[in-house]
């Protein structure tokens, strides 16, 4: 077995940590199953409430349902991703390794984004079916909104999840802390999606919200990368 020395650069380590999280999820399918189940329940409940006499609600409502389902299921997935670091005190071993803390952050962030996007795919299909939404007409633009929203959500969520690793009521606290901060993303995502689902899409408005989300993501990324090290180190 003549395997060389593995890469220890920033991105090699970040990808290794993301790969580890995805490998764990592949074995257990716990996050995908619970998040997807929760998202499906949310969409079903809304469909019973808003689809009356076979008439789908307007795009503004459908977009809101899509983003609320993503938000609720995302918190569950995020919490569980970090619970796996707490089990067996794996986080201590990880922090003791020579991997830069920002690479750990980047790895956790990438894994969370991939897992959330998997759930979002299922949720989007369900919303399309249950609410007769015109997702296919602007699939690329809606996918961009979802990607930006997911990155922003995971960026902040990873920092808070790390901060709450040893907190007792971390599930409740995570939602309490995270929801108010990601409200701008939720509003922008819902408005942008609504603009695109409309029978006469407003592309200018959708572009504005897309750019707004990209700007928020950049701010969240910079602050998240800066805050992760002291937070995870307990300084």
């Amino acid at each position: 077995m003549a395997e060389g020395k593995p890469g220890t650069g920033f991105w090699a380590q970040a990808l290794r940590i993301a790969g580890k999280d995805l490998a764990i999820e592949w074995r257990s399918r716990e996050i995908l199953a619970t998040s997807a189940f929760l998202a499906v329940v949310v969409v079903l409940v809304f469909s019973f409430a808003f689809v009356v006499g076979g008439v789908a609600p307007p795009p503004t409502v459908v977009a809101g349902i899509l983003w609320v389902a993503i938000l609720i299921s995302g918190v569950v997935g995020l919490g569980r991703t970090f619970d796996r670091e707490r089990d067996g005190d794996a986080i201590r071993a990880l922090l003791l390794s020579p991997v830069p803390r920002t690479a750990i952050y980047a790895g956790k962030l990438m894994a969370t984004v991939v897992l959330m996007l998997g759930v979002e795919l299922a949720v989007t299909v369900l919303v399309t079916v249950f609410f007769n939404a015109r997702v296919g007409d602007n699939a690329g633009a809606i996918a961009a909104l979802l990607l930006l929203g997911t990155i922003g959500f995971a960026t902040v969520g990873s920092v808070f999840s790390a901060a709450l690793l040893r907190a007792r009521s971390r599930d409740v606290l995570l939602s309490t802390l995270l929801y108010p901060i990601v409200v701008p993303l939720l509003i922008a995502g819902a408005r942008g999606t609504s603009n695109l689902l409309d029978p006469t899409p407003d592309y200018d408005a959708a572009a504005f919200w897309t750019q707004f989300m990209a700007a928020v993501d950049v701010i969240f990324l910079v602050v998240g990368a800066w805050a992760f090290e002291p937070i995870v180190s307990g300084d």
Partner: protein
Amino acid sequence: MIPIDSTGMGGASPAPATISPRPGPGGTAPLTVESVGKVFGRHRALAGISTAMNAGEITAILGPNGAGKSTLLAIVSTLQAPTSGAVRWGDVELRRGSPARAALGYVGHDPGLYMDLGALANLTLFAALYGVPDGPARAATLLERVGLGGAPMQAPVRTFSRGMLQRLGLARALVHEPSILLFDEPSAALDPAGVTWLGTELQRERDKGRVVVLVTHDLDAAAALAEHVLILRRGRVVRDERRPGPWGAAHLRAAYEESCRG
């Protein structure tokens, strides 16, 4: 009581750690704690701790609850920064961000493993994080060494017994051949056979010339294993003493009680 194995059996050993400070007088660099203090808010957990922990020697850190043992170990391991003072390995300061951190191995009462991954996957992951060449082969060697060669490799380690997890935790700590090994209550919840095995492993690592630091409440284990005893009380060193051989349980217990009295 942990029996002493003075044979110093050596296992298959990969390339040594690439980061090494200038050796001390004993040939291998000692770990020195220089006036280390730690304050949490208004509570002073450690006050001016100074000591030296030599290579090829087991240092036992003892003391009642709240004495600052775990805080000191957290600072030595670089997981916490001291409020004052420094920890050095030879002439290299050990702190967060220092490349010399790669010389540290840590075993706590929790195994420090991903419970949903298999044993081999865990060790291979940590080997990669430390940049160990030929990680899977190194992992397989270590699994044999800690007696887990026959364990189900694909099963999530959460299905392992406490003793198996502790063996795997030691293998994880050794995967990068650290020069400094830190143990925080490693025998907690182990059965007598596991405690015996762990004692043998500690001696084996000491005999390889590593700095071995053991935080424990188990005075019998410390008496059997340690050459150097550091007793803390209320964040201060109340005894720092070396003996050429084992301390003897009765003698250490008397020294401990005398140090912690008052």
